[in-house]
């Protein structure tokens, strides 16, 4: 199997095939023998050259993460031969940007109105969760094109709250 794997924004080429006790991997051209056992549904034990690693995975707000040695990495896996693997990509810095809810909560206050101008980092609204009020900031300088959030409404992680043009 061949994958393009993006770890914290950097793309790695991984070519792997099954072998006894694990996988023979070619990572960015380098051969690595990997002894791997799935110990729990989301936990792999990996031994490479005698070194032991536990790799945990989780999905959170639409992102896939892997954890190694207490550090979280954003991970995207795609098959270079598939069409789906090619499309998409990061949002364009210069186009409109969606502001999404970073966690489930309740919109308690809007700090700007539609069509108003905002600076990068300026507070756009306040979402409350777990007894804490959290200011949601604009990712860029621009105009508030759309403000879908409504005061008092419950939101889920990933819901679009506003669009900045």
């Amino acid at each position, binding site marked *: 199997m061949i994958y393009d794997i993006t770890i914290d924004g950097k793309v790695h080429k991984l070519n792997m095939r099954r072998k006894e006790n694990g996988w023979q991997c070619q990572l960015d051209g380098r051969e690595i023998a990997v002894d791997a056992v799935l110990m729990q549904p989301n936990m*792999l034990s990996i031994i490479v050259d005698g070194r032991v690693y536990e790799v*945990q995975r989780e999905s959170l707000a639409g992102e896939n993460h*892997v954890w*190694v040695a207490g550090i979280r990495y954003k991970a995207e*896996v795609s098959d270079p*031969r598939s069409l789906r693997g090619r499309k998409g990509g990061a949002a364009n810095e210069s186009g409109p940007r969606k502001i999404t809810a970073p966690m489930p909560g309740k919109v308690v206050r809007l700090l700007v109105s539609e069509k108003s101008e905002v600076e990068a980092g300026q507070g756009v609204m306040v979402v409350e*969760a*777990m007894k804490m009020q*959290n200011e949601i900031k604009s990712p860029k300088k621009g105009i508030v094109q759309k403000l879908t959030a409504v005061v008092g409404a419950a939101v889920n992680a990933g819901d679009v709250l506003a669009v900045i043009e």
Partner: protein
Amino acid sequence: MFKKILIANRGEIVVRVIRACHELGIAAVAVYSDADRAALHVRKADEAYRLGPAPASESYLKIETILDVAKKCRADAIHPGYGFLSENAKFARACAEAGVKFIGPSAASMEMMGSKTRARQNMEKAGIPFVPGTSRGLESPEQALQVADKIGYPIMLKAAAGGGGKGMRLVHTAGELKAALEAAQSEAQRSFGDSEVYIEKAIVNPRHIEMQVLADEHGNTVYLGERECSIQRRHQKVVEEAPSPIVDADMRRRMGEVAVRVAKAANYANAGTIEFLVDQQKNFYFLEMNTRLQVEHPVTELVTGLDLVHLQIHIAAGQKLPFKQEDVQLRGHAIECRIYAEDPENNYFPSPGKIVTLAEPAGPGIRLDGGIYEGWTVPIDYDPLLAKLVGYGADRSQATMRLERALGEYFVGGIQTNAGLFRRILKDADFQAGRLDTGYLDRLLKSSSEKIEPASSKEIAAIGAGIFAALETESAATRNDSGKPSKSEWTKTARAEALHS
């Protein structure tokens, strides 16, 4: 002794108190809101009753509903935990009137300590050292200017009914004072329904050190040593330890004796905590008294070998303290980390949701007081404290190393936690040297944080992600044979490959 105790709270502290009840052969009753039917504190209880909808105002703060449950299930005492109704004198009084023993001080003691100005007035009478300033609410901006001039800038404006940093303003010059006073008063009015604000001299880079006291209902009061609680974020304690790295036996005795005088002046019974500000010359000033069990009580339990909740229950049952001051001996060192559901990489936003994976540390010198389990969904309605991880060791360095080891074993998957923050603190040179004050954590968080990671971690992350994808491809292929669509979001394209190639 009581036969049945109702615990009017939620989360880890209820689990803590249930354990104490079971250790004393007492039945434990939990209460829950609609958001908490599946919570750990309900699972661990002997009995559990619904209070109402998720908002605390409709459940955990409903005095009458809670007392109705207590009567219906014949609980003979109520433990209030911390937060919610724990420092509510009206609740303590209502319990007394309903004939249910409130496990804590009297309503009168609570009221005396509930208002900071009233507490200062009483402490003044009792000759307790406190931060210079007024002990009564300010009547005018002019009076404020006079007082501030006398004690010298910077000064601190504080709401009498305050807590959690609300109604508080730091003022550096006379010019800022009037506006700050107005702002503090209006914030105090909004937050507590009481605009009373007073002045304290601002202590620069103070430590926050508190003293645990314990008093029975027969006039015996002892102190159980101090806790260093200077590591705070947004006035919220994050790491606590006992003993404090700067308190020696003599200072402990002096602080402890003051704390006992405070408790006696308040006619205090049960467990309580006297908070002090400590300046750089190690002068200590009375700040306030918390008239309940503290979140951080485990560090005191570990160094004294005592169980504070057992003792609270014994005291409430009318028993005398089973030991004297000279019997209290500290041994070793304990450090507590408060594990919160919040994302350190994302501005510390709260992170409720389903705990998909949970690996918890154990072994020598580790105590974990948790309120969570794998498969549980952390609700959005309450405070984000998930668990308290405490490391104990023969000395501060062993406690630190054990805690670091335990953090390495801890994994909460599906939601984010602040566990990574503690690793950073424990590795920090200032922390290790005990150079702490209430500004410590903000400074640490502002300093650049390199991810401490072995060179190979990223490669392993890539390989791991690839293997997860490959395993899913294989099992998706199997499942597709049986006609069932697979649902995982892990690798859409990986599955696409399995189907196309």
